């Protein structure tokens, strides 16, 4: 009990300090932390991302009209994720890669885990119907990552959701780990190889060396959708492996 009181006090005092520092009365000098909703984009680097104007040669960018703006993605988050800061994304993919690997190393059971109760027959039937919808939606999402709010990560997660649903609804279901590993490795390698191709063609690692096309078209944004496909496949296969590992146990 005493512990909880002390912890509470610490947290409250800490909170008071955070609040007072962040939202201090504006008497002192210097730039302040912006109030909620009052972020000023023109003072941030993202202003240039939004205007697709980092290289400084674009005026207005219009949906389905402007050709070859520096980043052809209609979704500006995507243009940051897979273009301006693609290097972060490579790292992010690596994070998932290595944690899935770690889980696999620790839980390297051969047979799959059975739940205490048999699966629901209705659920099993339903999953065998909706899995197709979920899977194709997942693919749709990562292929359209540069156009719609989505991308490799949500898309990949959709694929893995389908896998997880199969696991939860069918005691006999087991993914082919090897093929997923192969897919994962291939997708990762291709991401890197595309990065190195950028280095070869444009002089920069992860350089967008393909034409970016018209903003808003499916075939636009250069390597962005291609990378997002790799990311989607990689994330999908990694999460699926993660699920398989979690639901495995030492062979009986």
């Amino acid at each position, binding site marked *: 009990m005493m*512990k909880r009181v002390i*912890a*509470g006090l*610490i*947290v*409250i005092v*800490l*909170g008071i300090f*955070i*609040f007072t520092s*962040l*939202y201090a009365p504006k008497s002192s000098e210097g730039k302040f932390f*912006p*109030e*909620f*909703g*009052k*972020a000023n*984009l023109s003072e*941030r*680097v*993202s202003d240039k*991302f*939004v*205007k*697709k104007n980092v290289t400084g040669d674009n*005026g*207005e*960018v*219009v*949906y389905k009209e402007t050709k070859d703006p520096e980043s052809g993605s*209609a*979704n*500006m*988050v995507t*243009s*940051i*994720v897979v273009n301006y*800061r693609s290097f*972060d*994304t490579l*790292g*992010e993919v690596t*994070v*998932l890669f290595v*944690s*899935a690997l*770690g*889980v696999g190393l*620790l*839980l390297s059971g051969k047979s799959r885990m059975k739940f205490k109760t048999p699966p629901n027959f209705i659920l099993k039937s339903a999953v065998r119907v909706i899995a197709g919808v979920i899977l194709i939606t997942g693919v749709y999402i990562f292929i359209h990552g540069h156009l*719609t*709010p989505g*991308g490799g*990560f949500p898309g990949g997660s959709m694929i893995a959701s389908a896998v997880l649903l199969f696991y939860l609804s069918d005691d006999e279901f087991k993914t082919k780990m090897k093929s997923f590993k192969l897919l994962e490795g291939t997708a990762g390698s291709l991401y890197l190889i595309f990065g190195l191709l950028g280095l070869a063609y444009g002089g920069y690692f992860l350089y967008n060396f393909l034409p970016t096309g018209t*903003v*808003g078209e499916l075939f636009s944004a250069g390597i962005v959708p291609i990378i997002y496909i790799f990311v989607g496949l990689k994330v999908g296969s990694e999460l699926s492996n*993660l699920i398989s*590992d*979690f639901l495995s146990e030492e062979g009986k």
Partner: protein
Amino acid sequence: MIQYIFIILILIGIYGLLTQKNLIKLVVALNVLEVGVNLFIISVGYVNDGVAPILFNGVKTTNSLFVDPLPQALVLTAIVIGVGVTALALTVVRKLYAKYGTLELDEMGSESND
């Protein structure tokens, strides 16, 4: 202000880390903290009356007020990282459970090898 809530979430996460002794609860506390941080990140990019930073019919880069897309991109990364860490943490919890038969830190006893 909505940011207050996010900071309070972070503080709740810290409170959880300070008080909980159940491994799963610790991981949950960590996740609460992470959610707080992630929401906070998104909130710093919010612009009053701004729209989602996606071009579609009728939206041009010059005639619209966008929210900052960069924090959203960062948060995407942060979330995925959080998922990875959580998965690993839960795996370790499972291993600990298999080893000690309990999820309570206090019941595992001290491991000293000297």
